[in-house]
């Protein structure tokens, strides 16, 4: 088709919309949009709960919720991009000569405005969600402080060690009681480390001569994997230990067993 041929558009905006919706390529794109949106929704609802470890704290629940719901919320937007791209791909032209000229759409003001507004809206939802979660966590950390179990965490190449001041015990594993807030005071003896009790969903760097603080609200019992999430030298991969969120009775028993051996875990 040459540049001189024109596509005739309906005269009124309403008629143009009606014509637009009746077009075969539009309906095909619409069904592709449904498909891709559904794929992303299923991915969010199914994959992250399956992949992520058991939720043992309110913080971990907040993390997992964000992963799931941000995927779901972004699904329609991702669907738009992928449906148009897929429809275009399926409409491909093969051969050694260029295809016929397409419709010369230089821009479309309403489309640009709607797209930008949708992006801003999605962005605001993500920001508000994040700020609310951040604020909730900050308030919880402040109000929980008086009743928190204190654990002093020290990172050193390449091991974690723990000191429970109230219980006066030194350990190399980390057990904590369920339903009692915990405050971690974290420091490093050498280079930067990053304290990561995985199932609690909290993480803070351990810095030399500076104490950083993390807070967790354990909500279920279960084993903990404690790792280092900051490259810290030769045996970074092996800088890990274990622990558990326990019932108060089990925690008290564990503390007692260590106190019985001089306050140092064997």
């Amino acid at each position: 088709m040459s540049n001189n041929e024109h596509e005739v558009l309906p005269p009124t905006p309403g008629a143009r919309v009606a014509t637009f919706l009746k077009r075969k390529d539009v309906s095909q794109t619409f069904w592709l949009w449904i498909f891709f949106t559904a794929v992303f929704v299923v991915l969010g609802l199914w994959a992250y709960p399956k992949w992520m470890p058991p939720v043992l704290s309110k913080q971990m629940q907040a993390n997992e919720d964000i992963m799931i719901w941000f995927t779901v919320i972004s699904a329609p937007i991702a669907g738009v991009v992928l449906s148009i791209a897929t429809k275009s791909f399926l409409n491909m032209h093969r051969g050694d000569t260029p295809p016929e000229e397409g419709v010369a759409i230089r821009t479309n003001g309403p489309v640009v405005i709607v797209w930008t507004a949708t992006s801003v809206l999605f962005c605001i939802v993500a920001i508000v969600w994040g700020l609310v979660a951040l604020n909730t966590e900050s308030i919880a950390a402040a109000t929980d402080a008086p009743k928190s179990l204190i654990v002093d965490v020290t990172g050193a190449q390449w091991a974690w060690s723990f000191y429970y001041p109230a219980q006066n015990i030194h350990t190399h594993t980390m057990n904590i009681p369920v339903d009692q807030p915990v405050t971690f005071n974290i420091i490093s003896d050498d280079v930067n480390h990053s304290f990561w009790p995985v199932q609690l969903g909290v993480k803070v760097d351990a810095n030399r001569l500076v104490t950083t603080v993390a807070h967790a609200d354990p909500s279920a019992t279960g084993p903990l994997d404690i790792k280092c999430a900051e490259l810290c030298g030769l045996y970074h991969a092996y800088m890990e230990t274990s622990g558990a969120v326990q019932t108060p009775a089990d925690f008290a028993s564990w503390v007692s067993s260590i106190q019985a051996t001089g306050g140092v875990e064997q």
Partner: protein
Amino acid sequence: MTTLSHAPASSRPIPNPEKSLITKLHMGTGLVVGIIFCWGTYFAMKAGRDMTDTHNVNKVLLMSMFAWSVGFLIGIGAFIGPFRWLIGKDLTAEEQLFMAGDGQGIKRYFRYCTDHKVVGIQYLVGVMAMLGVGGTMAMMIRTNLATPGSHFVTPNVYNSLVGLHGITMIVAMIIVATGPFGNYIMPIMIGAADMAFPRLNALSWWVLFTAIPVLCSAWFLGGIPTGWTAYAPLSDQAGPGMNAFVATIIIFAVSTALAGANITTTVVTMRAKGMKWNRVPIFVIGATISVALAIPAFPTFMVAMIQTAMDRTIATGFYDANVGGSGWLYANLFWIMGHPEVYVILIPGVAALMEIAPVFVRKPLFSYNAAIAGFAGIAGLSILVWAHHMYMAGWMPSLNGPFMVTTEFISVPTGLLFLVLVGTMWRGKPWMKLPMLSVYAFIWDFLIGGITGIYLSDVPADNYLHGSMYVTAHFHYTLMGAALTGAIGGLAYWFPKMTGRMLHERGGYISFWFVQIGFNVLFLGMFIAGSEGQPRRVADYAHLFAHANLISTIGAYSVGIGMLTLLWAIVHSWRSGKIAPMNPWGAKTLEWTVPYPVPLVNFDTPPVVTSDPYGYGRSAK
């Protein structure tokens, strides 16, 4: 500005090789003088020093590396022009023509050549070499991680692989589009005879070249055990190999500053008559915004490295908490460079694909202004987001909220880039050639990279994801899946203009599918491992992560096969591929109006531009 005339080659004076020193200098003389400077400095500084003191070792090594760089540049003739200025003279017209590589054939690629097309090819070959080395290291990393408990390499070698892979790929990716295409294609696209500062252009390449042996020397000096982030105080603790990293970054920052100043000046001052800003090809806009962003970013990294060097050589303690310093100072300086750098890498690749899409869909670029707004918005916001890399550092937790806001907002201009591409595709019938396939691959890859970036920018989610394999997968989707895909698309598109031959089509397709399928398998596995809780940069891992890692390694081998196929296609096509017509894609930008080989000054008659280059399509009324 260039002083080369527009006279045809046949009527220009032939440089006399007997009379000028400049004709006797080349890469070989550079290597000799560089090595002499390096070893001379090494032995001179070593004499009388206590080499059991690590500070002295660091001093000697660093100065030897810088001496190599300066010596090489002297030996290749980089400073002949400035030296002549010092004595009140300049190069003669004959010498300038010689320096432009006129009539020297393949030898010009091994000289201090000011022709932007030669510099573009030098960057292209250099980038391919770096990607090859970095990719080989990636394969070694993935081989080690194929199964838990693997001892394919030792933890020390593994950490060095991680660091060297990281910095090699970052350097390669920063120049992957602006180096070859920004130098070879961009001046022709805007109708210029050369770059604004041809000698600086050559200098930017050869300065970068001197960084390559320096970085390689890290292998022989104990490696770089810090990852490419080189966080202090781990970098203070690291062995002699760390000096190679420090010197590489300082040298590279000089190179990027030269290139950035040159490209921006060229675009601002040397556009063809009639090429108003709204007629400038979008690749030129993207490349210019990218290098403009790099100009303030890399000096920050350079400052960070100079302070690392001072800590390591004269015990200043900028980053040493024991004497009042702070590792957070380094982290801030690093990420003030580090996040803009992501977009320095990304924007030219996307811009190349925006150049490609209208040509192959035979439609105008949808909303040129939105594309510029997207690039400008990303560039502007990118300098305000650096501390999202430090949410978990413990530095200023009260700033986490504000940095989360600025970071999330980057998704708005980023969304415009998608709109421009899918808007261009809408109702189109794309010509499915290799460059266009890259546009589709980019859309998928960057969509995944973008969405996962939103999780990571959110502080509560980052609590879990930071420092995990999830982050590694995310940034590979943006840097490799998006930016490298864009650069490969650009290579397939501009290969005929740069080499005079068509890229081997079947080889290109085979490579494309191996790379893209393998890439998605590789990083899907990494997303799973990260979600499961595997930290990044670990030489070994728990059995829990075995399946995800095996999947990743299988994907990596597919990428490796694909990249080797692409290499074969490039070499084969360059040597004996099908001769390319002047404008094989029917594109409307100026580079397709000049023949191959492109004349020394590009255009016999300076072009006049009367419209933008996206005038495709039939009109709707």
